[in-house]
C-alpha cells in the first residue's frame, strides 16, 4: 500500500452541529487515527470549525511539526472550501494539490438521519480520501498569457455597455452584431419604464459612441462562425455578410432606400407591423449608417434587372459583386450578450394572435406607440385608422405557464403598466390590465404602478382564458365586431366577459432560437430553457463555467435594462482585471499521453470536443495539448494501452478511492477486502 509510505494528517470537522449532530465526529477521528494508521495516517484530529483561521492553523502547524506529506479534511463540499484548505497547505509549504477535501456534510450529515449509518459512511468516505490522497502528486497551475483584445457578441444595450467600458479603459474590442445596426431590442421601444425616458434618446448616444470609438471595431451584419482556443487566447472567425454596399464610399444619404421599388414586411425592426425596402437601413439612427441590401428579396439577384439603387447612388457605393468575408481575430476574453427573442404568441391559439386582426404583441405595440413607427405614434386598430375605445393588456403570455415557459419573464408587468400609461397618453380609451401578480420590484417601480392605478387603469386579477370575436347573442349584440375577453376575475370571484377593441399581449422573453448552437460554438452550457448558465447564480452572475467566456444581459435570462447594463459593466470589469494581470493560472487537471506507450491507434482522437488531441502522423503518436485540454478525462479510459493519464483524477487515485470507500461495512466495521 503506497499510502503507508506517506505521512497523512486527517482532520474531521464538526461544522458546529451541522456534522456533529448526525456523525459521531470524535469517534470518526479516533477511528481514523487507529484503524488507518497502517495506511499512513500519523495524526487524526477533529475541530469545531476546520475552515476557521484557528482550524487552518492546526493543519499548518501539523504540516510543519509532524512533517505531513498529505492532508485529508473531512468537512463540507470541496465546492465550498477546497481552495481554503489548499491555501493553508500552500502557506505551510505543502503543495496544495496534496490536500483532499471529502464531504461528510452535504453528502452525509445533512442527508441521512441514522447516526450509526451516517458515522459508518463518514468513516468510509475518509478511508477513501486517505487512500486517494496518497496517490496524489504535486502539481503546478498552468499559467497562460491574456490577449488584451476582447470579443463582444451582440450589440444590444448589454453588449454596448460592456464594449464601452473595456474600450474606455484603453483596450480593443470587437463588437459583433448579426443585424445591420447595433441597438438591439431597446432601439425598438418607445419609452422605458419607470422614468418614461424615450428609449432611442438614451440609447443612441451610446450607439454613436460605440460606433465612433477608436478602440471598438464594429462587425455588423456579421456572425461568429468559429471559436478556437482557450482563455486568454481565443481565435475567432467572424463572417461579415455581404451588404452589397461599399462602406468606404457610402455617405448614408439614403437615396438607395428611397429609390428601391420593392417593399417587404419588416419582421425584425418593425415587428411585422410595417414595411421596409429591400435596400434598407433598419432605422434612421442606425449605427453604422450604411444600409444593407436584402439579397434573397432583391430583384437584381432574382432576375438580373432593376439596379435602381446603383443607378441613383451619388457615390457609386453599390457593389453587387460583394461576397461574405471571413475575418479572423485574436482575443483574450469573450462576452456573450446575445439577448432574447419574444415568445411567439401565435402558439397560444386562445388569444387569437395572427387570426384576429386587433390582437397585438408587446413589440408591435412598442412600434405603434413610437412616434417614428409605422403609425407615427398613433394608437390605432389593425385598419390603421380607428382609435380603440377600450384596450385590454394581457400579462404573462407564455410565461409562468407549464404549457409554454414556466419562468417569469421579469419585465412584462412593468412593460404592461407602461403600455397602460401610454395608451392613456395617446387616447381616451378605457384600459384593462389582466394580471396574475404585479411584479414591480425595482427602483421607483412600485411608485409607477401606483401612478398607473391613479390614472384610472382597471386591473383584473385573472389569467385571460380566451380572446374571441364570437359573441353570445343576443346579450352581446351591441358589441358585434369587437373582441371579447373571457377572464375569471379572481378577486370578485366570478367569470367576466369584457368587450374590448384592441388586445395587447405582453409576450414573454425567450432565448434566441439558436441559443444551443451558440452555446456549443463558445463551449459554454445553457440550461434546458436555453439561457446561458452562470458560474454561480448568486455569487458569480456574469461568468460562465468556461474560463474566458462571460455573459451579460438577457442572454442569461430575462432582466431589465439597468440589470443588463450592470451585467455588461461587471463582465467588463472582470475582463479588465484579467487583461491588467497579463496572465492567468489554470487548474492543472489535464490529460497527457505517454508517447512510449502510444501505439498510434487513434481511438482517442475523435473523443475531444475541444480539439485538444492531436495526432502526429510522422511519429504515429497522439499528443494532448495541455492548453486546450479542459480536463474532462474522457480520452483516458478509451486508450487500450493505458497510455493516457490524467492529473488530479488519475486511475491510481480513483482506484484507491474505491478501495478505501469499500473498506468499511454498512455498520462501520473494517472489512477485509480482497484486492481485485
Amino acid at each position: 500500500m503506497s499510502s503507508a509510505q506517506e505521512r497523512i494528517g486527517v482532520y474531521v470537522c464538526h461544522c458546529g452541529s451541522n456534522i456533529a449532530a448526525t456523525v459521531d465526529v470524535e469517534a470518526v477521528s479516533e477511528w481514523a487515527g487507529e484503524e488507518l494508521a497502517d495506511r499512513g495516517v500519523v495524526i487524526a484530529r477533529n475541530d469545531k470549525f476546520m475552515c476557521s483561521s484557528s482550524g487552518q492553523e492546526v493543519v499548518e502547524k501539523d504540516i510543519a511539526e509532524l512533517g505531513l506529506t498529505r492532508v485529508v479534511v473531512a468537512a463540507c463540499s470541496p465546492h465550498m472550501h477546497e481552495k481554503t484548505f489548499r491555501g493553508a497547505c500552500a502557506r505551510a509549504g505543502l503543495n496544495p494539490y496534496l490536500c483532499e477535501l471529502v464531504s461528510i456534510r452535504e453528502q452525509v450529515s445533512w442527508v441521512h438521519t441514522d447516526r450509526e449509518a451516517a458515522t459508518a459512511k463518514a468513516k468510509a468516505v475518509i478511508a477513501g480520501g486517505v487512500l486517494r490522497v496518497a496517490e496524489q502528486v504535486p502539481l503546478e497551475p498552468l499559467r497562460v498569457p491574456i490577449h488584451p483584445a476582447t470579443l463582444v457578441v451582440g450589440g444590444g444595450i448589454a453588449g454596448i455597455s460592456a464594449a464601452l467600458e473595456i474600450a474606455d479603459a484603453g483596450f480593443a474590442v470587437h463588437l459583433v452584431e448579426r443585424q445591420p445596426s447595433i441597438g438591439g431590442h431597446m432601439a425598438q421601444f418607445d419609452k422605458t419604464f419607470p422614468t418614461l425616458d424615450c428609449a432611442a434618446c438614451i440609447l443612441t448616444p451610446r450607439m454613436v459612441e460605440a460606433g465612433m470609438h477608436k478602440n471598438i471595431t464594429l462587425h455588423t451584419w456579421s456572425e461568429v462562425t468559429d471559436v478556437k482556443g482557450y482563455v486568454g487566447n481565443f481565435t475567432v472567425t467572424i463572417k461579415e455578410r455581404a451588404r452589397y454596399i461599399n462602406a468606404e464610399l457610402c455617405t448614408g444619404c439614403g437615396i438607395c432606400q428611397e429609390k428601391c421599388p420593392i417593399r417587404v414586411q419588416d419582421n425584425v425592426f418593425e415587428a411585422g407591423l410595417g414595411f421596409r425596402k429591400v435596400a434598407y437601413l433598419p432605422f434612421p439612427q442606425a449605427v453604422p449608417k450604411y444600409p444593407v441590401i436584402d439579397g434573397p428579396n432583391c430583384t437584381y439577384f432574382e432576375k438580373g434587372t432593376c439596379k435602381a439603387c446603383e443607378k441613383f447612388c451619388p457615390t457609386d457605393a453599390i457593389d453587387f459583386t460583394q461576397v461574405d468575408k471571413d475575418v479572423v481575430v485574436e482575443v483574450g476574453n469573450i462576452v456573450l450578450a446575445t439577448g432574447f427573442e419574444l415568445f411567439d404568441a401565435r402558439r397560444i391559439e386562445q388569444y387569437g394572435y395572427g387570426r384576429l386582426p386587433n390582437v397585438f404583441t408587446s413589440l408591435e405595440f412598442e412600434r405603434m406607440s413610437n412616434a417614428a413607427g409605422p403609425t407615427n405614434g398613433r394608437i390605432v386598430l389593425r385598419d390603421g385608422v380607428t382609435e380603440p375605445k377600450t384596450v385590454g393588456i394581457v400579462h404573462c403570455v407564455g410565461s409562468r405557464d407549464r404549457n409554454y415557459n414556466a419562468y417569469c419573464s421579469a419585465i412584462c408587468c412593468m412593460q404592461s403598466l407602461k403600455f397602460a400609461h401610454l395608451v392613456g397618453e395617446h387616447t381616451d380609451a378605457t384600459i384593462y390590465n389582466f394580471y396574475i401578480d404585479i411584479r414591480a420590484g425595482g427602483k421607483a417601480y412600485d411608485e409607477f404602478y401606483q401612478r398607473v392605478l391613479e390614472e384610472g387603469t382597471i386591473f383584473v386579477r385573472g389569467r385571460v382564458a380566451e380572446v374571441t370575436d364570437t359573441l353570445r347573442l343576443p346579450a352581446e349584440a351591441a358589441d358585434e365586431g369587437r373582441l371579447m375577453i373571457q377572464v375569471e376575475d379572481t378577486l370578485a370571484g366570478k367569470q367576466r366577459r369584457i368587450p374590448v377593441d384592441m388586445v395587447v399581449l405582453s409576450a414573454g422573453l425567450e432565448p434566441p432560437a439558436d441559443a444551443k448552437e451558440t452555446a456549443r460554438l463558445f463551449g459554454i452550457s445553457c440550461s434546458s430553457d436555453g439561457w446561458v448558465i452562470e458560474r454561480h447564480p448568486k455569487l458569480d452572475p456574469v461568468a460562465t463555467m468556461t474560463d474566458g467566456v462571460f455573459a451579460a444581459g438577457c442572454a442569461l435570462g430575462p432582466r431589465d435594462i439597468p440589470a443588463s447594463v450592470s451585467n455588461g459593466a461587471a463582465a467588463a470589469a472582470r475582463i479588465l482585471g484579467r487583461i491588467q494581470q497579463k496572465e492567468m493560472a489554470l487548474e492543472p487537471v489535464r490529460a497527457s499521453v505517454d508517447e512510449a506507450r502510444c501505439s498510434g491507434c487513434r481511438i482517442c482522437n475523435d473523443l475531444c470536443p475541444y480539439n485538444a488531441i492531436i495526432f502526429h502522423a510522422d511519429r504515429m503518436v497522439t499528443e494532448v495539448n495541455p492548453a486546450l485540454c479542459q480536463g474532462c478525462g474522457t480520452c483516458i479510459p478509451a486508450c487500450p494501452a493505458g497510455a493516457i493519464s490524467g492529473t488530479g483524477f488519475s486511475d491510481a487515485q480513483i482506484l484507491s478511492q474505491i478501495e478505501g470507500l469499500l473498506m468499511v461495512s454498512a455498520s462501520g466495521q473494517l472489512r477485509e477486502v480482497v484486492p481485485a
Partner: protein
Amino acid sequence: MSATTTQAPVGAATDSAGAAFEPVMIGFTCNWCSYRAADLAGTARIKYPPNVRLIRLMCSGRLDPAFVLKAFAGGADGVMVSGCWPGECHYIEQNIKALRRFVLLRRVIEAMGIEPARLQLVWASAAEGQRFAHEVGRIVEEVRALGPLGWGRDGARPHESIAAVSTAAGPAAVPAEVTA
C-alpha cells in the same frame, strides 16, 4: 431509510450475521452536474439512504469501466453512474460517450454473472437535488431486493464466485475454466 441490526423479516435478504441486508454501493458523479445535485440535496436537507458512497470525477466521460469492475470486485453490491443530462454536459458531449460505455458495460457484467440492475445510470443536473435523492433511494431498494453480490467480501474471491454462479446456472452459462 435507516440501517437496522434487528433480525430481518423472513424471506428478506440478510447478511452473514442474519441482520437485514444493507447494500454497500459506489456512486460516480460528475463535478459539474450530479455532484452538485448531491450537494444541493444536502443544502436542502433532503433525506435519502446512506448506502451509496460517492466519488467525484470531473466528468462522467472519465468513467473507466475498470472502475466499475473494481468496485464490484472490491465488495460493492451496486454501482451508480451519474452525470449531466445529454445535451447539457459541461464538456459538451462527453456524457454521451459515458452512456455508450455504460450500455456495453452492462452487457459485459451480465455475461459475468452480475445482475444488470446492479449497475444503474442516473442523469441529474445541478438543479435536481430532489431528483438525485429520489433516484438514489430507488436504486438502493432495487439493489437491496437483489441481495448481496457476495464478491470480494468476507474472504470470497471473485473467481470463486464466478465459478459458483456458473455451476448454478448450468455448464453452458460460463466456461468451466476461469482463471484468476
